[in-house]
């Protein structure tokens, strides 16, 4: 008989985090994994002016000495832009703030009716600033032109799940959910069922699949949304317009080997629209159109629970 489930849940990264591991020493490992998430949050939050991310964004130097975590994040920003031809652009902080997302939003709060934070500015398309973000590992520095600001957003959650995964690798079974981005695996090789919920926020499971290891990320436009002067607005910016994306999709779930990769694929698929989304889902996934049509790909199958 194997050991019982050992897990913890807590709030961080603007959402709920859950970490589970099965095996000897899992209590210590889970405690350390939780500390990893908290540390990442403290470093990469854009809502604390003392965070390393805010310090970097405000730094007038073009090369800024940075922690290993920031180096890894900045490298991921460049990789995401390069891999998606700029569709996933983590340098759109100006546009996100212009859309009205200037304060932390509790996703459990659902739709926010007031627009106390919206700024009446003209949205600007991306200038491809992600391509000018790079890292110098010898001097442990992040390089980018002064004024280019990074947004941790979804990439930060994917990175958090991957960091925890690296820490738990070796246990019989382990899993981590970082505000929707999840990663799982284990030496037992036993398959784990993954549920994907509806974009309506009811928690209804609309699709599922099982695998012994992997990562899943879900991106969508129905949460972290608010009322703006021009109507309903949300956090997912289309780099081609600089405005909240309207592509005909409400939600995309992507399966990938790592959580960061899953996050990149899910966002790229959502921004590509219903006809091209599947191109970004080589390992499977699910999309929900604005007419509430569900399409599944690869190992992901429709269900209703």
């Amino acid at each position, binding site marked *: *008989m*194997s050991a*019982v*489930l*050992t*897990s*913890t*849940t807590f709030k961080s*990264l*603007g*959402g*709920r985090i*859950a970490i*589970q591991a*099965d095996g000897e020493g*899992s*209590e*210590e490992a*889970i*405690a*350390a994994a*939780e*500390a990893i998430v*908290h*540390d990442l949050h403290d470093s990469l939050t854009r809502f604390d002016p003392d965070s390393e991310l805010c310090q970097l964004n405000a730094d007038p130097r073009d090369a800024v000495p940075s922690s290993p975590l920031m180096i890894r994040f900045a490298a991921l920003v460049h990789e995401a832009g390069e891999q998606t031809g700029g569709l996933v652009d983590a340098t759109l902080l100006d546009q996100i703030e212009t859309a009205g997302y200037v304060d932390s939003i509790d*996703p459990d709060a659902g739709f926010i009716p007031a627009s106390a934070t919206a700024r009446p500015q003209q949205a600007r398309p991306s200038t491809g600033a992600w391509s000018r973000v790079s890292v110098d590992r010898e001097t442990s520095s992040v390089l980018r032109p002064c004024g280019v600001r990074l947004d941790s957003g*979804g990439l930060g*959650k994917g990175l958090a799940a991957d960091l925890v995964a690296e820490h738990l690798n070796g246990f019989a*079974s382990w*899993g981590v*959910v*970082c*505000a*929707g*981005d*999840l990663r*799982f695996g*284990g030496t*037992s090789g*036993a*398959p*784990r*069922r*993954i*549920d*994907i*919920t509806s*974009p309506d*926020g009811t*928690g209804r499971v609309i699709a599922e699949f099982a695998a012994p290891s992997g990562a*899943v990320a*879900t*991106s*969508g436009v*129905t*949460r*972290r949304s608010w009322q703006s002067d021009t109507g309903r607005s949300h956090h997912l910016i289309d780099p081609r317009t600089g405005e909240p994306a309207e592509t005909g999709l409400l*939600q995309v*779930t992507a399966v990938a080997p790592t959580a960061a990769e899953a996050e990149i694929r899910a966002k790229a698929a959502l921004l590509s629209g219903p006809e091209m989304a599947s191109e970004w889902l080589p390992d499977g996934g699910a999309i929900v159109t604005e007419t509430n049509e569900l399409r599944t790909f690869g190992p992901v199958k429709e269900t209703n*629970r």
Partner: protein
Amino acid sequence: MYPMMELSKKELAEAKKQARRLRISNIRRRVATGAVMLVALFSGLALFRSIDQQAASTGTTTIAATTAPVSTGDEETDVSSVIGAAIVDQAVSVFGDDDDDEDEDDGGSILNVVTGSDPAPMTSSQS
């Protein structure tokens, strides 16, 4: 009311370090308490099943038991049994509940102990 004190960068760093140590210590205590609860619950249920001469099953076994109502919202109530139950509840809500039977809520908590070789389900949703 205490007068405002300005901390030097070194003092601030040390204070942050101490806060982090305390936070990790609290996490460890909480996780350990939850694990002990689960093991105790599982042992008790296994004994009950044995006495009741129920046939042992292989593979995944999901065991559910109803306890007294617990409040997870009041952090001042630092009772280990409550924390243990809350951890299981929270874990089930995020990692998924393998029980398809959605009975009415009787005000209690459903404790789920997943044993065997199949890991607990996990849920991906919009963040």
